[in-house]
């Protein structure tokens, strides 16, 4: 046979179990931290509601006592314990009464307390460190949570009214607790709804709810130790009075009395002289208006947005871009509130870049052929050589409408087009062309080709430059490439040496030629002058000779003979004395003169 109080308590337990299951299911649908915290919070509520149920049952047995807090009887304590054990032994039947009497209540409560403490700490940790993922189905779940809140509110009202009718402090307390639950459910629901509008307070909501759980856990643990002490000292109040001690501080905010006292205090202080009920109504009305106003303000804030200096924006009205308005330039702008208009912001004024081919390593001090300096992805040149180009494409968005609506991923398109274009161009050129002479032309050609392709796909991108940062042959054969350059230098050196020889030999030869000619000319002058001189001398001699030929002849003859024979050996022979015997001395000193 159950009293109305018991029925109420059981109803609230069943409803709370239902809520808890629903809330844990919602966690899987949304992935919201606030909902996870809220689900655990509901779980703690089940425990408190069970405790309330126990105390209500116990109260109906000791129906003579008006209030459990007045009870100072040791017997009451024992009865309470027996009752608790009875309930527990319905679940765990094989445990002996005495054993259960001493340990079961405290140990189970202790375990639950520790569990809740761990849960709340875990939730704190999540709220602080966990990077929240996207929350899905947020609007629907948010609305459902607001419905939960309404249900909690109805339970609270119901419990309070029954509690007041039946004078059950436990039920009134639980009603207050349910009021607090309403608040946390509203908080979770509200955070989900405004998440849909682009404001994320999921973390904050989770944090607050985790704090609720933390308090519940502390309260359970403190109650256990307090009870134990009371049992020892045999000077106890009902354990029930401890049950809410920690939570009372928070629950004060949800009790009407607190607020009434607050109003009275204000009323006395400022001499407003309002009647209590009037004051109450007014205050509640203002509070409600403020809540509604805040909500409306939040809602209409969604119709203002700002575009930053490097951005442009597009307004989408019911999914359709307002193209006639064109791209929205930086500044503060209005639109219709969510969910009618949406804004897409795009970094259209920033020059962005992508690496094509290979990416150089930032830490490399110099880009040298023989040293690795980044990724190594080989390309093939037209003369069948592997080489490694490092290209950087600078681009920006030139048409944000095309950029947004024509291609799913314009950057990806640019990347692929760039790869294709350079592969195509490189497969027609030799390595040396790519590495040196063709570079400038290459930039112009590639920009033209890639831009053509990008425009064909209406990607809305514009290429600004393509920079060949570096091109190098495979690192382990780079030395042979450098040897070619060294050989080329050797060739130049040899040619230069030969030219040097040429430059020195020719002038010498020319100088000798000039000298020779000059010499011959001087010879000619010499000859002619001599001839002329000798000719004139002869003429003069002849003129003299004509005067007396005989004498001149004799004189000349004798003169010459004189000089000619002066130093010679002379053998003089007289023909009259017969044939002489002449012994010629063929001494070394003399040569026989024929």
């Amino acid at each position: 046979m159950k009293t109305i109080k018991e029925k109420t308590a059981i109803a609230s337990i069943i409803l709370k179990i239902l809520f808890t299951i629903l809330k844990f299911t919602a966690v899987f649908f949304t992935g919201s931290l606030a909902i996870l915290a809220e689900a655990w919070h509901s779980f703690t509520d089940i425990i408190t509601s069970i405790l309330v149920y126990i105390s209500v049952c116990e109260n109906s047995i000791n129906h003579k006592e008006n209030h459990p807090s007045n009870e100072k009887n040791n017997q009451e304590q024992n009865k309470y314990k027996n009752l608790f054990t009875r309930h527990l032994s319905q679940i765990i039947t094989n445990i002996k009464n005495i054993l259960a009497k001493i340990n079961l209540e405290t140990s189970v409560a202790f375990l639950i307390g520790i569990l809740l403490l761990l849960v709340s700490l875990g939730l704190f940790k999540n709220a602080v460190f966990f990077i929240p993922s996207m929350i899905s189905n947020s609007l629907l779940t948010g609305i459902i949570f607001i419905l939960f809140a309404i249900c909690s509110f109805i339970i609270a009202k119901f419990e309070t009214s029954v509690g007041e009718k039946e004078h059950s402090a436990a039920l009134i307390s639980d009603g207050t607790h349910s009021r607090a639950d309403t608040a946390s459910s509203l908080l979770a629901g509200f955070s989900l709804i405004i998440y849909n509008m682009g404001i994320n307070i999921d973390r904050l909501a989770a944090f607050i709810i985790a704090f609720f759980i933390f308090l519940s856990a502390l309260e359970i643990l403190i109650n256990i130790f307090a009870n134990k002490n009371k049992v020892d000292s045999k000077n106890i109040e009902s354990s029930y009075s401890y049950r809410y001690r920690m939570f009372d501080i928070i629950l004060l905010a949800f009790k009407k009395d607190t607020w009434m006292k607050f109003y009275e205090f204000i009323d006395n202080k400022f001499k407003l002289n309002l009647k209590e009920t009037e004051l109450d109504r007014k205050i509640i009305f203002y509070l409600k208006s403020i809540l509604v106003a805040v909500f409306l303000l939040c809602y209409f804030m969604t119709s203002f947005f700002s575009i930053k200096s490097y951005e442009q924006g597009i307004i989408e009205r019911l999914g359709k871009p307002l193209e006639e308005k064109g791209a929205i330039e930086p500044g503060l702008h209005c639109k219709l509130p969510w969910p009618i208009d949406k804004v897409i912001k795009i970094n259209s004024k920033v020059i962005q870049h992508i690496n094509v081919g290979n990416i150089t390593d930032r830490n490399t001090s110099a880009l040298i052929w023989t040293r690795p300096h980044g990724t190594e992805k080989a390309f093939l040149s037209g003369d069948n050589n592997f080489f490694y180009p490092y290209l950087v494409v600078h681009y920006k968005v030139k048409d944000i409408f095309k950029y947004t609506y024509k291609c799913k991923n314009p950057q990806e398109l640019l990347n692929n087009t760039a790869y294709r274009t350079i592969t195509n161009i490189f497969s027609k050129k030799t390595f040396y062309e790519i590495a040196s002479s063709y570079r400038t032309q290459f930039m112009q050609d590639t920009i033209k080709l890639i831009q053509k392709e990008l425009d064909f796909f209406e990607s809305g991108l514009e290429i600004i430059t393509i920079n060949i940062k570096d091109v190098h042959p495979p690192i382990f054969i780079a030395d042979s490439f450098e040897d070619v350059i060294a050989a080329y230098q050797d060739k130049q050196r040899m040619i230069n040496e030969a030219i040097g020889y040429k430059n020195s030999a020719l002038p010498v030869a020319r100088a000798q030629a000039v000298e020779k000619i000059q010499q011959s000319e001087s010879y000619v002058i010499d000859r002619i002058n001599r001839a002329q001189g000798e000719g004139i001398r002869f003429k003069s001699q002849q003129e003299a000779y004509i005067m007396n030929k005989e004498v001149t002849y004799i004189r000349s003859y004798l003169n010459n003979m004189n000089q000619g024979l002066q130093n010679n050996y002379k053998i003089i022979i007289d023909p009259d004395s017969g044939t002489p015997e002449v012994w010629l001395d063929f001494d070394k000193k003399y040569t026989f003169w024929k």
Partner: protein
Amino acid sequence: MKKLAIFILISLVLILVYLTAFIVNETEYAIVTQFGKPINIIKEAGLYFKLPGFIQKINRLDKRTDILITQPLQLLLGDKNPIILTCYACWRIDNPLLFFQSIINKEVAQQKINDMINSHLGSTLCDYTIENIINTDPEQVKLQEIEDKIVTHSNEKTMKRYGIEIISVGIRGINYPSIVAQSVYDRMRAEREKEAKRHRAEGEEAAAKIRAETDKEVAQIQSEAYKQSEIIKGKGDKEAIKIYADAYGQDPEFFTFLKSHETLKEILQDKATVILSTDSELLKYLDYQPNENK
């Protein structure tokens, strides 16, 4: 309680709107299905209504051009050369309903397109040689043609059967298998060494040529100078001889004996032993008595 009722009513209306209204974005097609049966294909962006979630469902398909990169594929060319090619394809949904029925979603579509392109790549490249892919002669390179062929072949199937249009296919990477790559590296090194040797030999050749030319030029200059000097000397000699002849020709007899005497003097000056007869003109007067012999 009345207020509460109004509040619940408003909430219910909001939930109903949430369940029935939906926005189709500019970037997508939407197909509304009723218990799985497609009943409405929406191609224009805007606000639309349907029956609540469990009766009618929306399936959204992206209408923008999408890109996929195929798996790198090793294949044999017409001349049995192995090569590794990586392609990409730009595609978009051409027929949303057909696409929705035959492909279901983008991931499946990408896999299907990948299969198809790699298959067409293999069959198309049989008709080409390595010369058509890598060549310094731009006329011979036929990458563009290969890409166009793959697009045409793929579209024959995809347009009618898959509801997909392949807009373009590009070859984004050409490479050799690793074993071939090693021999390419070796060849590159050999080529470079050859090149270096050629440069050095060319240097020697050019230098030798310059030296020889220089020597030749020097000889030419010197011989020319010799020739010139001989001509000049000859002219001078001729002049001198003329002058001598002029002068001596006036009295040859005198010249003869004068020169003879001078010559004799010169000849007899050194190292000669002279045997003289007392009958000779010179010694005639050695024992001369005037008028006795005559």
